[in-house]
């Protein structure tokens, strides 16, 4: 997990994680109320630039994620494009009825999903869990029990991955993987899920007892090993994100690419 973050000296890594989290969560509400196709097109362009500049993963992974998100976003809009309501029919075949309105609406929904995907990849690729949860405790005052619980749980992921491999090897050596049919599938599913769940619960319980003994659940007057504070990067971050968002809105006013300015409720 740790080797995912290659160049951690990028700006977005230095931003306060809570600020980044709240800011991105707020963007969701902003774009939920955008019904102008031009705005969402320009927002997608603006966030593409921001993503290529700021994302914290290697270029190769970043490119493939970008491509798959783009394609997948239009899968999610396919129902709207193919069957949506509309009067200016472009194509009609049995139930399929593509109209100008449904096409525009579908593209808006698809691009919106795409923008959300880019935003969350920006977040996920520049936010390691440890500073994130420390920041949640210090800035957002999340009870320490929950935050340390999450941190401990994240550390168990590699052990779980190893366990998964063990179960698979054990099943392979006993010939369980060669059986076919629904019964065999159910048997395998049961063995994987129960094995993983039982071991995780036992391990979590043991860890919790140990953590309780070391006063991890104590609430009053804590000090923190990592002090997450504020810096100049936070200001620059806020500035960059606002420029990205505002430029999307302004460009759609200056250079409207399509005549669809309110695609959700007609136009």
């Amino acid at each position, binding site marked *: 997990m740790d080797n995912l973050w290659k160049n951690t000296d990028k700006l977005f890594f230095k931003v306060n994680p809570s600020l980044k989290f709240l800011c991105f969560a707020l963007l969701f509400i902003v774009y939920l109320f955008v019904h102008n196709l031009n705005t969402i097109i320009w927002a997608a362009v603006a966030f593409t630039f921001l993503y290529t500049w700021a994302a914290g993963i290697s270029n190769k992974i970043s490119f493939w994620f970008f491509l798959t998100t783009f394609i997948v976003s239009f899968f999610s809009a396919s129902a*709207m494009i193919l069957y949506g309501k509309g009067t200016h029919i472009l194509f009609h075949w049995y139930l399929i009825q593509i109209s100008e309105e449904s096409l525009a609406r579908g593209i808006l929904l698809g691009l919106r999903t795409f923008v959300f995907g880019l*935003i969350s990849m920006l977040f996920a690729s520049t936010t390691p869990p440890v500073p994130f949860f420390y920041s949640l405790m210090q800035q957002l005052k999340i009870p320490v029990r929950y935050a340390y619980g999450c941190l401990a749980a994240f550390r168990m992921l590699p052990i779980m991955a190893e366990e998964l491999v063990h179960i698979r090897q054990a099943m392979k050596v006993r010939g369980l993987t060669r059986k076919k049919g629904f019964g065999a599938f159910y048997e395998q599913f049961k063995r994987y899920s*129960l094995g993983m769940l*039982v071991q995780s619960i036992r391990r979590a319980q043991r860890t919790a007892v140990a953590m309780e003994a070391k006063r991890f659940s104590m609430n009053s007057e804590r000090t923190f090993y990592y002090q997450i504070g504020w810096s100049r990067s936070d200001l620059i971050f806020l500035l960059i994100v606002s420029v990205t968002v505002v430029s999307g809105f302004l460009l759609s006013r200056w250079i409207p690419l399509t005549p669809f300015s309110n695609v959700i409720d007609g136009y």
Partner: protein
Amino acid sequence: METKKNYVLNLTDILVTIVVSLVFGLIFRLMGPVYDLLQSFGIQLDALIYGIWFIAGPFTALLIRKPGVAFLAETAAALAEVLFGGSGGIVNLYYGLIQGAFSELIFAVFLYKRFNIGTAMLSGLTASAGSLILDFPLNAFYQMPGWVITLNIIFRFIGALILSGVLPFLLVKALEKTGVTQLVRPVTKEDYDVLNK
């Protein structure tokens, strides 16, 4: 003798809930592409497996049997999905909050006394109803023809009943046989009665 149920979440409950939700978060992340693929052609096949995204709430509620765990589990699983870079993105967190709250509601209505297949199925069903609140504006459902909406809701409810009602119940039943549930459930009066025999 102290026989009152202890309803406050302690660190063990929280950690077990979060670890289980993290497993579910990983499953959500891996199921994401499958869901996206099923969305193509728009015939709402995706709604059939939507139910898997509600499983964290009912499962942990049946497992730990305390107030708040269903909400915590669903939220934590959604947060994990966001941190793993799931395909829906930051939206998933909002879905998690709403679905968790709706899931929790059913167990609260039964005053945290009934943890059986019925409440699990109801909980999954209300969670899927909760997900509709966000899906309606997000996917502009009201601009769809009637048959798409009907198909989506029927598929979604069927999926929810099976994947987040029956499935978690069967899993917890199987876990009970392994004895691991005794580690995490609050001590009940019956447990004390066993001591007196």
